[in-house]
């Protein structure tokens, strides 16, 4: 059952091939037996899941089941879940049990999904390898000595290892697309404002966006139709109707104009990754698409601009963690200042502290214009690059990341080496555009991701193109060797 897609599980539940309780027991058993190998799931909600599955079976029997009724899913541990610990991968929130659900969590509950638990992640979503999690790193199911990517590495590894057919995730600078690429699955970061951020713990509020991870584009379409909504509780939520993303998947892509930015095939790109991406583009041409050489001249400035804007916003957002109202508090504080400083010194890990310090520096008196003001102007230049490109093309494609999954610890001591992992993904967050990654090849026995960037609110077209690619190729059906042995049946 764990090799079925969400679309197949929905059909199987409706045709009574299996019940939601059977399905839920199956995935819970897989998590119990296999998760120790991956460390992808950090909280399992077995009791609630089985109760939800039993309720789903009743609705399925009664014939009034909503779209995802009875389908097991996992939530990234950044989404608040009423009564279930929401740690955000941090010691700071290790004891935090929210008294409310995020809008995304409510949407999945409304549509009848069964939540198996919460997935591991880089602390406060700051990282590209899952090595910053308080709960230890997630291991890549394709190569257990390699990272799964981050920050949504737990969601990506769980889906790749068939611990769940789909999982929610978030993307601030590549945190859906890069782990999807490294774990050989599909994931989409929607247009900024498409998915509600309410109850999604904030990292950089003008960049953060939730989205789905699953094995196929078709499953991402099903999940995004549930996940996306207009939400009055999120002031940046966009009031536009949510299309039925599944209904346009089968449109032919003949005549589709694909922009290929030369800056995304530059020095530093692994030759094997480049070859796989070029082959994928050739496969799309065979389906009737047309390649157009384009330039995004300010691409090289996206990482520097991001490492001003994201830490600046993070330093403000994370000021709420002060040991007063919830979360960690240090032992025996001498006075209020000591409580703030030690709570944050002990509760935040090194990468989170570094970003708060950078953000504070860039926002300090005397530096604001040189850093934050300048970065916001560069952000405008980056958006203008995309606007010019989308006047000529329908979608933009290139690699999701520069190389396949790397070994734990291999980025060394310099944080910038890790930051450059997101060199191809960050620009879309700065512009607020939707981006997607789908598997398109293998290098060194590890998956390669093809990135698809769309125009604002063009998720339906991106999913359509990705689905058509997956109709003609088999990369999304490959499974890591580690899950083919010893898997609970």
């Amino acid at each position, binding site marked *: 059952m764990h090799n079925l897609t969400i679309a197949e599980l929905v059909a199987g539940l409706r045709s009574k091939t299996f019940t939601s309780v059977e399905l839920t027991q199956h995935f819970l058993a897989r998590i119990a037996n296999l998760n120790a190998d991956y460390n992808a799931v950090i909280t399992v909600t077995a009791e609630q899941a089985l109760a939800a599955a039993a309720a789903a079976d009743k609705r399925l029997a009664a014939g009034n089941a909503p779209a995802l009724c009875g389908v097991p899913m996992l939530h990234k541990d950044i989404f608040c879940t009423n009564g279930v610990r929401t740690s955000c991968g941090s010691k700071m929130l290790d*004891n*935090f049990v*929210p*008294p409310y659900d995020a809008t995304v969590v409510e949407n999945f509950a409304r549509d009848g999904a069964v939540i198996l638990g919460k997935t591991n992640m880089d602390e406060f979503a700051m990282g590209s390898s899952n090595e910053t999690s308080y709960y230890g790193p997630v291991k890549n199911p394709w190569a257990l000595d390699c990272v799964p990517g981050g920050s949504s590495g737990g969601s990506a590894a769980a889906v790749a290892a068939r611990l769940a057919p789909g999982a929610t995730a978030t993307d601030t600078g590549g945190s859906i697309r890069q782990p999807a690429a490294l774990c050989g699955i599909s994931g989409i970061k929607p247009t*900024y*404002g498409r998915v509600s951020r309410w109850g999604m713990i904030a990292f950089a509020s*003008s960049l953060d966006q939730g989205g789905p991870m699953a094995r196929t584009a078709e499953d991402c379409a099903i999940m995004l139709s549930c996940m996306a909504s207009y939400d*009055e509780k999120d*002031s940046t939520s*966009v009031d536009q109707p949510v299309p039925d993303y599944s209904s346009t998947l089968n449109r032919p892509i003949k005549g589709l104009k694909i922009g290929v930015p030369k800056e995304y095939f530059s020095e530093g790109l692994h030759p094997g990754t480049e070859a796989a991406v070029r082959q994928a583009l050739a496969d799309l041409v065979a389906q009737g698409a047309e390649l157009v050489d384009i330039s995004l001249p300010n691409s090289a*400035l996206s*990482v*520097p*601009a991001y*490492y*001003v804007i994201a830490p600046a916003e993070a330093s403000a957002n994370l*000021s709420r963690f*002060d040991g*007063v*109202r*919830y*979360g*960690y*508090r240090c032992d025996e*504080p001498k*006075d*209020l*200042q*000591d*409580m*703030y*400083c030690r709570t*944050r*010194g*002990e509760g935040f890990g090194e990468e989170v*502290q*570094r970003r*708060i*310090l*950078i953000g*504070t*520096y860039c926002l*300090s008196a005397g530096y604001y214009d*040189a*850093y934050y003001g*300048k970065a*916001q*102007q*560069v*952000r*405008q*230049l980056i*958006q203008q690059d995309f606007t010019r490109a989308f006047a000529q093309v329908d979608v933009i494609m290139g690699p999701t990341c520069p190389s396949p999954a790397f070994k734990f610890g291999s980025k060394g001591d*310099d*944080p*910038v080496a890790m*930051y450059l992992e997101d060199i191809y993904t960050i620009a879309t967050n700065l*512009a*607020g555009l939707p981006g997607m990654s789908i598997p398109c090849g293998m290098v060194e026995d590890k998956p390669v991701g093809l990135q698809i960037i769309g125009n*604002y609110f063009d998720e339906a077209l991106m999913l359509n193109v990705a689905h058509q690619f997956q109709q003609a190729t088999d990369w999304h059906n490959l499974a890591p060797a580690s899950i083919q042995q010893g898997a609970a049946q």
Partner: protein
Amino acid sequence: MGIERSEIEKLATLSRIAIDEGTISDVARRLDSVLQLVDQLQAADTTGIDAMAHPMQAIQRLRDDRVSELNQRDALQAIAPAVEDGLFLVPKVIE
């Protein structure tokens, strides 16, 4: 450029993060590396370019002035480190 030890101490105070004395030089070295990265921005010609704060150029929505949330004080205080009589407790501020 080279960030000074005293600057790290000032940033730590502004950020309300206690940094172990012994790690300050490591913190400074890594911050320097990041600041060198972001200094690449200075080479960009941004003459006449407006700052972009938000991808959608959104404006702040206003909601109707009516009660929308119920009082959840008990639920919210149940997860606090220290409360008494409905108040959040912190170390003594005024002697």
